[in-house]
């Protein structure tokens, strides 16, 4: 019995790691590639979650919905919606330098959260959207979890391959150049504003997809899920700890940080009631401490940004 419980827990954790890895990959495009300090991940996460929820859930009194579209349509819709929201935000905010962009994006995420909380016709406000269909959700519990984990893994793999392709391709090279030295990139004829907007939209679309996967996994979404602590800052810690600029690092960071985050919850749940609330802060402290240690002893993260010469660096090194 104990073993099955453990297996269930592992499945649950695997799914969450996959979802967070998508968010971290999205952030890696924005921060790791393009140097954009987006502190409003929760906002794009929410847009994706709610879009897919509205597109796929059955009709409910008093809110938009009842389209009952297949889940994959919802997920694509989530990416498009997050991208469409990112476009005007990027258009306005990307003109700011990095720290101002961070402040602006926190504000934007908060606006999105408030809109979701108060627009009952759109999102059913605080009660949230329920009955979101989960693919293979009719299967028995464990099989259903396994099927969902497989889907998340496939989505993550495809996303990873797509992002990884860009890193070495001329697009990624140009983005890294813009990040390293904006003035010189401009002098080399690159349209910096436009390219940053591209990276911002691309990253945001992945965050929207992560949100959609989260909503379908929980079968419901409420404004409480759009907590900047777990949806924004945890993702930042994952990327910094894993290694910004490195896609594998982003995924590894998601796995490490989520495992610690999740296991520490079990530990604090064992405590007597009076300490349980305080223990919540111990978990935050633990994550913060880990970030400090990584920044002190491995400032580039567990897997630093790789150094790529060109697409065929293997044949080149054999020439030498």
């Amino acid at each position, binding site marked *: 019995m104990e073993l099955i419980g453990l297996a269930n827990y592992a499945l649950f954790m695997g799914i969450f790691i996959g979802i967070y890895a998508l968010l971290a990959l999205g952030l890696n495009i924005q921060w790791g590639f393009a140097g954009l300090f987006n502190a409003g991940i929760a906002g794009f996460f929410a847009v994706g979650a709610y879009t897919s929820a509205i597109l796929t859930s059955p009709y409910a009194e008093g809110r938009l919905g009842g389209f009952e579209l297949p889940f994959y349509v919802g997920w694509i819709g989530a990416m498009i919606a997050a991208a469409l929201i990112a476009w005007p935000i990027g258009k306005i905010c990307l003109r700011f330098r990095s720290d101002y962009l961070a402040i602006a994006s926190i504000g934007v995420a908060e606006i999105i959260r408030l809109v979701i909380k108060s627009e009952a016709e759109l999102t059913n406000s605080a009660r949230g959207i329920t009955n979101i269909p989960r693919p293979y959700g009719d299967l028995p519990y464990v099989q259903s979890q396994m099927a969902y984990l497989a889907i998340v893994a496939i989505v993550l793999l495809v996303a990873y391959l797509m992002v990884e*392709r860009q890193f070495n391709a*001329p697009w990624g*090279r140009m983005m*890294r*150049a813009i990040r*390293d030295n904006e003035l*010189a990139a*401009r002098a080399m*004829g690159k349209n910096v504003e436009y390219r940053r907007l591209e990276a911002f939209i691309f990253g945001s679309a992945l965050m929207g997809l992560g949100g959609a996967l989260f909503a379908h996994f929980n079968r419901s979404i409420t404004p409480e899920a759009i907590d900047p602590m777990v949806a924004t800052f945890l993702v930042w810690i994952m990327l910094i700890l894993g290694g910004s600029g490195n896609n594998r690092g982003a995924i590894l960071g998601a796995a490490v940080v989520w495992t610690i985050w999740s296991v520490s919850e079990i530990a604090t749940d064992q405590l007597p009631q009076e300490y349980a609330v305080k223990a919540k802060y111990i978990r935050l402290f633990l994550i913060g401490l880990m970030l400090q240690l990584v920044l002190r002893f491995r400032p580039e993260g567990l897997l630093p940004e790789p150094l790529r010469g060109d697409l065929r660096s293997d044949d080149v090194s054999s020439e030498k």
Partner: protein
Amino acid sequence: MLELNQLVMDFSGFRAVNGCSFNVEEGSITGLIGPNGAGKTTLFNMIAGALEPTSGTIKFLNEDVTGLSSDALFHKGLVRTFQIPHEFHHLTTLENLMMVPPHQVGEGLFANWFRWGRVRENETEVERKAYDTLDFLELTHVAHQRAGNLSGGQKKLLELGRTMMTDAKLVLLDEPAAGVNRTLLRKLEEKIQILNTERGYTFILIEHDMEMIEKLCDPVVCMAEGAVLIEGDFQTVRSDTRVLEAYLGETVGDAA
């Protein structure tokens, strides 16, 4: 080719460039000299589109380009280097060169996913060009080094190399010799001369190294206090007492 007309640049009350006008002929290597703070680099920044002039006009190839951004000017064939090297420090030396050519197929997000064959074809071409440039600059051995780890002189060469990765017409070189050792310096002069004669690049060169100016530049423009003091061939400029006064900041008799 380039016509500067009464350029003025104010920095909140401080006038760095004050009514600067001169023309650059196609195919020439124009030297721009003057004491520190004469406004040479500010002038460069205006020509290259990094700064918008307070007043005055810039014409490039008979077209008014005043206030155009530097990326737009790049596409018109105007390329610049920086006084303090602005390499892309996390990229390799090779990548620093490969990012330069405009309109690469793989600069489109979707091309990299759906037209990978075309992208690779284009990349092969760009890579070959980059290796040729590295060979020319004798930097091939550091092709896969992080550009941030290159020496000061190598970074200067890399700056020059970037201008060779595109079909530049006018190249602005901001103190290419500063911090470069003597041997490398002779090499650099030679490279500039080859680019001028064989590739038809027109150069404007800010430099404090008078040997280099003498060897390469005709005409020479001397700036002081934000305006053109005198222009002419090297001998004329050098023997002009006003130039000495500008450099030494005092009246020099007839000791030229």
